[in-house]
């Protein structure tokens, strides 16, 4: 019992919105609805929801690096792409037997993290910050897109996996669990839904613990005032680098799950437009809070998909307008603003009683 209480305590803190029995009761209800949801829905809608969930991971990674860490990174889609391609190359070469797809999942995430370690070393140990960080990561992302887009020729192959240039890779095996009665294949349906939902809850709770730990507090201190954090004896470069690598791993997870979901990955998933979308979800949701980011991402994605019916160009213009207006009017994000307003309302109501 004590262990459970301390677990709950480590999930709450000043760095995340939402605390107390009320919030966790709501959380349990939402989770229960999410678990029961496939029973009331058809395969297509469930698959589409998985698609939404996949993007939440990359949004959370940006929330971690930008919202909490204060370093604006446009490189999340680069890590997304690296891990996606990594999974494709590995599974096309080695197949899906003996649970190798899960090994490939971890290896692909590891590749993205290693790349982030290398890039982050040069950036953070060179002490560039602020706008330059954004430009360098953006340049890396665009370069990677251009590089992958020109790999159309037959000489661009890794083992038996052709990179296929602008058309991208496809037909990699989905995640497969080895099982005594025959392997269970997680196609974009109920199986994958529960797998991704479980991962999402784990990542969300894990990030809550991380951000409310002393590590998270140091990260926020660095965002607020790097010099002061340094004077207090923290090596800010290491903290920033670790945050960057964790963020890259999350973005990589998103990339692998995307590749698994649609069984394809293309260079355009690393392009300008692709890089801008996570930024919009996180900015509109509320970049300095995990819960707002998750809600914001799901809401904006749903709105975007609804608008795409009228043509994706119009939807993108709308997204751009939304982003500019959010930055001008509600710089902390719309969802976070609403949540703060609600919590003030509740506390005033309690005070009146």
């Amino acid at each position: 019992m004590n262990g459970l209480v301390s677990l709950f305590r480590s999930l709450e803190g000043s760095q995340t919105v939402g605390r107390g029995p009320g919030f966790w009761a709501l959380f349990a209800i939402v989770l229960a609805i999410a678990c029961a949801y496939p029973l009331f829905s058809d395969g297509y809608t469930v698959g589409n929801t998985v698609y939404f969930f996949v993007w939440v991971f990359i949004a959370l990674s940006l929330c971690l690096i930008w919202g909490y860490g204060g370093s604006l990174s446009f490189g999340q889609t680069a890590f997304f792409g690296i891990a996606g391609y990594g999974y494709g190359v590995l599974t096309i070469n080695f197949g899906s037997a003996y649970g190798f797809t899960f090994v490939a999942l971890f290896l692909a995430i590891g590749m993205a993290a290693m790349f982030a370690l290398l890039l982050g070393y040069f950036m953070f140990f060179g002490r560039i910050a602020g706008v330059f960080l954004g430009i360098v990561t953006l340049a890396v992302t665009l370069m990677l897109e251009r590089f992958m887009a020109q790999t159309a020729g037959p000489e661009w192959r890794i083992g038996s996996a052709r990179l296929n240039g602008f058309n991208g890779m496809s037909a990699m095996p989905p995640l497969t669990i080895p099982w005594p009665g025959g392997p269970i294949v997680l196609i974009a349906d109920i199986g994958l839904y529960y797998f991704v939902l479980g991962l999402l809850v784990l990542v969300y709770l894990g990030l809550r613990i991380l951000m409310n730990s002393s590590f998270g507090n140091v990260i926020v201190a660095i965002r607020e005032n790097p010099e002061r954090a340094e004077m207090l004896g923290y090596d800010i470069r290491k903290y920033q680098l670790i945050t960057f690598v964790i963020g890259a791993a999350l973005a990589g997870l998103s990339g692998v799950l995307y590749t698994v979901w649609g069984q394809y990955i293309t260079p355009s998933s690393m392009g300008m437009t692709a890089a801008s979308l996570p930024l919009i979800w996180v900015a509109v949701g509320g970049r300095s809070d995990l819960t707002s980011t998750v809600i914001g991402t799901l809401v904006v994605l749903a709105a975007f998909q609804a608008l795409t019916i009228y043509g994706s160009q119009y939807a993108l213009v709308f997204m751009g307008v939304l982003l500019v207006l959010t930055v001008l009017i509600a710089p902390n994000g719309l969802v976070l603003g609403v949540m703060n307003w609600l919590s003030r309302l509740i506390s005033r109501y309690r005070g009146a009683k």
Partner: protein
Amino acid sequence: MDIATLLFSALYQFGDAFAFLVLSACGLAVIFGMMGVINLAHGEFIMCGAYVTASTAHAGLPLPLAILAGTLVSALVGVLVELVVIRHLYERPLDTIVATWGLSLIATQGTLIMVGSTMAGVGTPFGSFQVGAYSYSIYRIVLFCAALGVLAGLYALFNWTRFGVLARATIQVPHMAAALGVDTRLIYSLTFACGAGLAGLAGGLYAPTMTLVPTMGATFIMEAFVTVVIGGADVFLGTAPAGVVLAVIKSVMTSWQGQLFGQIGLLIAVIIVVRVLPKGISGFVLRERT
């Protein structure tokens, strides 16, 4: 092939790369150097300049006037953007990046909706000349001269005019300049317009050499960013030397392995430079001087 033609070919490629880097970067560098704002819609200002140049040239205007029109329209759009968006965000440089990114998305997709996926280009003027076994475009030489001209013009503008003095005073200590009666808001507006106009000029100058598509800005911005990051905040001590260094890297890598490796060379250069010289070349030079 003898040494002279080889040398000429190398020089030509260097000049071409230098012109591209300097022309695409100087608008960005002016805005960043003066205001600390990174304009992610820079590529879209270039696109705007190119589109206006092409459409006025189709309407019958001679090319130099059409380029001038592209420059002016971009500058006007720059004033508008500064008034509506950038002005409110000077205290928050990271948010300016995000907002201008949103603007770039709107501009790209808006152009795609209104003008369509491509626009008829303008032919490259002046033809070509022959040195040794290869033929070279005269227009590329014109572009190189234009890049030098832009640098000289900017030097004159910021050192010899009243606007230049006021602008430099405003960057150094904004509130002091304001106390002495300088309208700093107007200076910021004009500086932003100047940067946007330079982007438009780059677009206009390159309009005859490339296909006009709504995403054409993306082909410029990587080079522009890299030059500004390596150069640092000062246009003359930063952008110009960064242009020289990067042009050497780019032309050598391009002639060795092809276009893409030229760009990869730039990227590796920038990543190493941020580790060694975080404030760019101009930061290094200025520190040496003091």
